């Protein structure tokens, strides 16, 4: 019997990292036919770079931990900017997610009895982080890659690797009907039809050029969607990781797990210098000539495991007092005193350090400094809570563009103003599973399919991309795309990272406007039609500039200090005026972001002070927990 083509549930997943593969796996299990589009072999996606682990309150260490405490830590760690219902459900699903990954064969570290082992991570007082040595992301990704390969062998999944998403095809009703892709080997543009598109394209570290991100993490896909009308939220929240090592090509991460296993951060003290503690006391900067463990002194309760935004700010504060190693912006991360077993748990990252610096971190303290690491902001996606009356009429993880879902680092949903370590891998797998459940429901309720959509719609979108391609290749001007990228990154790193002030942000916006103009006058050094990386990057750079605007303008407008967004001019969190989600919409007329604000869903936990100096283990009371939560697992 010939299958009715209209009955086949066609879904495209763009991106093959943890969230994309998790979505693809669940969709295949739910009888969808999935096309995965990825700029690289999915097994090489940026998820491999996640080192330290994945959080789940399984409570195997006798600490009385629970998913509710995990949710509390996550909401507080994000400085109350995250909508609370999705965070709650993510934390509730976490134990089952770890068990699922364990059954897939992900080689988690074990206790002597053979149970899962857990380590501590930042922003919590519990041992809640499951890990595979110090390359947990790699191992989780491989486990999902293997499951998806099984479905590939069954014909339920097709992969299009070395293909790039260029544009979403929207029909006359504004409904997603497919995408335009470019084959990165022969540069040909093509239409892929589908009735739902799941975007899982990760973060945008490359806008800052030097970051801990992989070369693929340009943010271009999100930028393209934003230019097509997708709302982009909380763009100004960019995580700066406290501990990375410098390099001319990349800043390499030294995982928070180094501190989770007992690593300590220090500089040589200088008692003639003074520093203000979070409680406003003035204290000397340690003892002259002796190691000063400043995080332990400033934050006695959490010590070296304060959340990342705090860690990065304090490191820079200490360096600005002239206490950085060699008077530069770098401090020591010291694991030399750890047991051999603990060092072995960190083997993967210790080898990275050794290979790139030539120094053996088992013997000599590592020199580290803060680096752009994670994109908390991203596509605005919907989340009807379990007990919302319109739960069934809305779709979780769906953007304002109907049929276009976004998951993983590319969405804005789970981390608020600052992400806690080891929550990214969890959010990626969880949001992918959610999309894997929501998309089939969306398809069930759809009245027509992409096969009934007029061919003209697809042709029109294809032609737009063909025109852009011709235009880029034909540009003849004095500018070089890679130098423009260097300039953009210099400004962004200098003015839109740890410390921000309004004058610099204004100037940066002007700079980006200037770069947008100069971008019209580039000429490409490569005009061939085969594996042309110069052209591919030039095409990505346009939407990257637009997202740079969103980040910078969002930062300029937000006159407060919250999580990763620190503005000395406005040194307090201002819940009255700024406890709200930034919503950026691209204006086709002005070519600038229009920004408005939406309320944060605070139904489970009222905002409290974000204290990491005294806080003890607490049994938080989360209110209004629905009784009908159905986890996607």
């Amino acid at each position, binding site marked *: 019997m010939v299958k009715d083509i209209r009955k086949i549930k066609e879904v495209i997943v763009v991106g093959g990292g943890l969230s994309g593969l998790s979505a693809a*796996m669940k969709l295949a299990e739910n009888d969808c036919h999935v096309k995965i589009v990825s700029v690289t072999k999915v097994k090489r996606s940026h998820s491999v770079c996640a080192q330290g682990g994945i959080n789940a309150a399984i409570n195997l260490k006798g600490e009385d931990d629970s998913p509710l405490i995990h949710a509390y830590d996550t909401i507080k760690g994000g400085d109350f900017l995250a909508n609370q219902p999705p965070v709650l459900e993510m934390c509730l699903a976490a134990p089952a997610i770890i*068990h699922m990954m*364990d059954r897939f*064969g992900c080689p988690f570290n*074990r206790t002597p009895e053979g149970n899962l082992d857990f380590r501590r991570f930042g922003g919590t007082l519990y041992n809640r982080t499951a890990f595979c040595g110090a390359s947990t992301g790699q191992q989780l990704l491989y486990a999902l890659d293997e499951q998806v390969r099984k479905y590939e062998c069954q014909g339920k999944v097709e992969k299009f690797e070395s293909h790039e998403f260029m544009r979403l095809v929207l029909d006359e009703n504004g409904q997603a009907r497919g995408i335009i892709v470019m084959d990165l080997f022969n540069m040909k543009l093509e239409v892929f039809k589908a009735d739902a598109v799941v975007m899982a394209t990760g973060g945008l570290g490359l806008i800052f050029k030097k970051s801990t991100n992989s070369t693929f993490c340009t943010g271009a896909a999100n930028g393209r969607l934003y230019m097509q009308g997708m709302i982009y939220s909380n763009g100004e929240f960019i995580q700066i990781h406290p501990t990375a090592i410098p390099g001319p090509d990349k800043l390499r991460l030294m995982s928070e797990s180094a501190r989770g296993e007992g690593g300590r951060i220090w500089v040589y003290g200088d008692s003639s210098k003074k520093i203000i503690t979070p409680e406003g006391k003035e204290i000397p900067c340690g003892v002259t000539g002796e190691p000063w463990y400043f995080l332990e002194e400033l934050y006695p309760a959490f010590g070296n495991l304060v959340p990342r935004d705090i860690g990065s700010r304090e490191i820079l504060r200490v360096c600005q007092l002239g206490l950085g190693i060699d008077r530069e912006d770098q401090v020591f991360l010291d694991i030399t005193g750890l047991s051999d077993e603990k060092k072995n748990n960190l083997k993967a990252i210790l080898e990275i350090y050794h290979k790139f610096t030539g120094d053996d971190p088992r013997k000599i303290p590592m020199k580290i400094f803060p680096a752009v690491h994670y994109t908390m902001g991203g596509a605005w996606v919907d989340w009807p809570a379990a007990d919302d009356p319109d739960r069934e009429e809305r779709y979780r993880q769906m953007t304002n563009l109907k049929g276009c879902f976004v998951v993983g680092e590319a969405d804005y949903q789970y981390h608020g103003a600052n992400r806690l370590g080891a929550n990214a891998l969890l959010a990626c797998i969880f949001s992918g599973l959610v999309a894997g459940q929501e998309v089939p429901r969306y398809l069930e309720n759809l009245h027509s399919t992409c096969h009934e959509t007029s061919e003209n719609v697809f042709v029109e979108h294809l032609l737009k991309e063909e025109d852009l391609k011709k235009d880029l290749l034909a540009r003849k001007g004095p500018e070089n795309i*890679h130098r423009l990228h260097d300039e953009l990154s210099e400004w962004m790193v200098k003015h839109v990272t740890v410390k921000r002030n309004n004058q610099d942000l204004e100037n940066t916006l002007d700079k980006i406007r200037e770069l947008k103009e100069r971008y019209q006058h580039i000429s490409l*050094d490569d005009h061939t039609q085969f594996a042309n990386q110069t052209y591919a990057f030039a095409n990505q750079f346009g939407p990257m500039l637009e997202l740079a605007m969103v980040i910078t303008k969002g930062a300029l407008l937000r006159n407060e200090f919250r999580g990763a967004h620190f503005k000395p001019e406005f040194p307090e969190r201002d819940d009255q005026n700024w406890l709200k989600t930034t919503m950026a919409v691209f204006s086709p007329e002005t070519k600038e972001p229009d920004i408005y604000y939406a309320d944060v869903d605070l139904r489970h936990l009222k905002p409290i002070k974000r204290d990491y100096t005294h806080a003890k283990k607490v049994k938080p009371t989360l209110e209004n927990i629905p009784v009908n939560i159905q986890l996607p*697992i």
Partner: protein
Amino acid sequence: MSQKYILSIYRGHPNHQYWEDFELTLIPMANIISSLMEIQKNPINKSGEKVTPVVWESGCLEEVCGSCSMLINGYPRQACTALIAPIIRETNHTTIKVAPLTKFPLVRDLIIDRSSMFENLKKVHAWIDVDSTHDRGPGPKISPEKQQIMYSLSTCMTCGCCSEACPQVNAHSKFMGPAPVSQVRLFNANPLGHTQKAQRLRPMMEEGGITDCGNNQNCVRVCPKNIPLTDSIAAISRDTTSQAFEDLFSFPDREKT
């Protein structure tokens, strides 16, 4: 004076490859990737001619993704961990030769197509069969010793260095190379994966499987992740022998007790 070095790159398209030299200034912590980025920004060869920028594959730049495998001075390795200064010091030469791997189809310049490696993973059933993704409670208990071995085998990034170094992987042989053999060991070591061991061992007994290994041991020498590939080959060799006996003398998928 700042030190100069030359990147001599074997580049071009299939059937039209040539060497092109680029002169660069040594900067701290420079590696092959940062050198290629410089060339991309300023694509002028040593003779002063403007040329098309060199293209290459890269991803994580910290040796966990497997993208940037190349021949560097003839040795298959990841370009990201190939630091310039130590290479100059060790070879006493300021010219470094960079070429694409030769055991895979060339795409352009330093880009090769390693799809065959992923096809091999399909052939050897390189996954664990589970009932579904629904919550079915904790996985099996595993000793820390066993976890350590599985973790080590599981760090294979499908980079292709082992195949490149293996004399048995060539145009005249169907040998699938050392990496899939080691993956068979990984999945068969898993308590759940063990139940499908025959499905992984049987492809190993066919043409292109384990008997095509010439025991040259190059693979284990070049593996950037120090995966015990030759141990895996020895272990799977034994297992295929007993699988062959089982297939011959007993019911096909009889569980060993």
